[in-house]
């Protein structure tokens, strides 16, 4: 058996006196969809920030395919196969959708400063290849109509899709999705769910996602990891985690847990 794709061992992050992430250990296997849930401020995004090189862990070890990421420069995480989206939209808002997605191809390209001045030879070939890939992604995510729009003028939900496209463009092995469906309605969530499954099934990308939409989490994840105050409450198959008393108390709330266990009786009755 080979090493898991991503392995966290005792990862801790402190901001001054505040321990945002406390000794978290978990792993993601190749081809898995793993969800992280937990109350607001539990440290989920902070954990992502460490995995993607935005912040160094205070303690602990993060390994990708057995390689310790501590020595990797922040901008090189992407080379090792980590792509991500951001909870609070971090797009390049003056660029078009295509531009944004092409930035995701950045590390794949080799054009140097001097070469770039002459759009000729390698730079040109590279640009064409990158653009081809970008168009594929645009088609895949069904955002053709906004392809040439400036991202800053798009609605929130549209921007989230562009984020996903940009992350995909980096050819990740592990895709980190931070509340990707927040701000999307049922229909759009369904689209994203489908994309996530397709990304895993067709592109073979493993997925680690943070999500508050429990339906989505329960439906598509292989495993769920629950955090509270930076520490692990439990980890396991979706149904187990959902039923865990600690999770219910800290995160779901009794009412929600009940509602979710037995979906919307009120509505069910009326629908008929």
């Amino acid at each position: 058996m080979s090493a898991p794709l991503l392995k966290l061992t005792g990862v801790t992050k402190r901001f001054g006196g505040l321990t945002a992430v406390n000794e978290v250990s978990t792993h993601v296997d190749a081809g898995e969809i793993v969800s992280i849930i937990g109350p607001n401020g539990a440290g989920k995004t902070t954990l992502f920030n460490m995995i993607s090189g935005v912040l160094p862990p205070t303690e602990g070890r993060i390994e990708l395919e057995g390689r310790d990421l501590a020595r990797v420069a922040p901008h090189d995480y992407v080379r090792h196969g980590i792509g991500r989206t951001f909870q609070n939209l971090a797009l390049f808002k003056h660029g078009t959708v295509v531009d944004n997605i092409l930035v995701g191809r950045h590390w794949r390209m080799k054009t140097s400063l001097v070469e770039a001045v002459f759009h000729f030879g390698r730079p040109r070939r590279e640009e064409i290849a990158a653009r081809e890939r970008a168009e594929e992604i645009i088609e895949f995510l069904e955002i053709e109509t906004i392809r040439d729009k400036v991202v800053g003028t798009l609605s929130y939900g549209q921007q989230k899709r562009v984020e996903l496209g940009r992350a995909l463009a980096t050819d990740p092995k592990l895709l980190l999705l931070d509340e990707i469906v927040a701000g999307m309605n049922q229909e759009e969530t369904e689209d994203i769910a489908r994309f996530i499954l397709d990304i895993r099934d067709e592109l073979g990308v493993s997925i680690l996602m943070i999500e508050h939409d429990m339906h989505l989490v329960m439906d598509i994840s292989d495993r769920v990891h629950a955090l509270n105050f930076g520490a692990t409450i439990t980890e396991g198959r979706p149904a187990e985690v959902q039923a865990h008393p600690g999770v219910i108390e800290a995160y779901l709330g009794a009412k929600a847990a009940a509602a979710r266990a037995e979906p919307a009786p009120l509505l069910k009755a009326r629908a008929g």
Partner: protein
Amino acid sequence: MRSGFYKQTIAEHLALTDSWTQRAWIAVALAALATAPFVLDTYLLTLVTLMMITAVGGIGLNILTGWTGLISLGQTGFMVLGAYGYAIPVETWGWDPLAGFLLAGLVPAAASVLVGIPSLRLTGLYLAITTLASAFIVVHLVLEFPGLTNGASGIFVNRPTVLGWTVFTDQDLFRLVAIFLVLTILGALNLRRSRIGRAWFAIRDKDDAARVMGVDLRTYKLYAFVASSFVVGLSGALYGIFLSFVTVDGFPFLLSIEALAMLIVGGMGSIAGAVLGAVFLVGLPEVVSMVFSAFGDSARALLSTGAHEVKGVLYGLVIIGFLRLQPEGLMGLWRDAQRVWTLWPLRY
């Protein structure tokens, strides 16, 4: 906004322009540049030459400030380095002007790395100060090493002979500068559509995210410094040739602010904006003068010796008035015009 053209290949997507109207405009502009030396009098010719030199500098600054979001008040510093980088080898050591032009770019580019490194962590106006400081330090150094730079007395610069072509008349100089401008525009456009250009605007818009996408912030910020100061240095060298004389006095500090103003008036972040801004700011004093003299002697007599100050006031008023009407700069005006053009008569 333009009505779309269906594209067959990816390569077409990458073309700098996809519309025939735009191509026609470009052709007109090139033709105008080619014929200008034959039709303009020396005064207008040198005015346009100065505009073009300023535009080259503006495009250079735009790389750093417009594209990468690093505000620079050090424009004059890099121009001075470019001017001396050309004048010293060519005039003092007798090197070939081509080598001089190369050095005019490389010297400021090298210096910009020195400025850039301590500036890597700085943003916004904090960065503006280190560039401002660098401009002062450059001037100080030029004066400190009279052996090399001839100190405050400056260096005379002859019109160059480039590849066997002796630039002698004002017409020749115009052509030389026009060639530089066109090459600069092409180079800059190419940069903009390369991965480097995209990395720059990614840094400007959201540097943290850019890093997660694999953009090494340090390297690319330095690239921006280098590319920008290379071009600015060239404009400095051209300016020196234009003035036939290089001294630090030829590059007053207010030029740095004017350079920024040019980008703002033109429309930050676009090459056309930088060019339009240069045309506007270099041309404005002349236009104000012309309008003023149109009022004739009566106005002049009335205002007596204050006439020129009144011009200054007018100049400022025009700038403010323009921004009030067109806060997005000349490029905004251009876009509005285009919109009217393409959408007319239906608005949506």
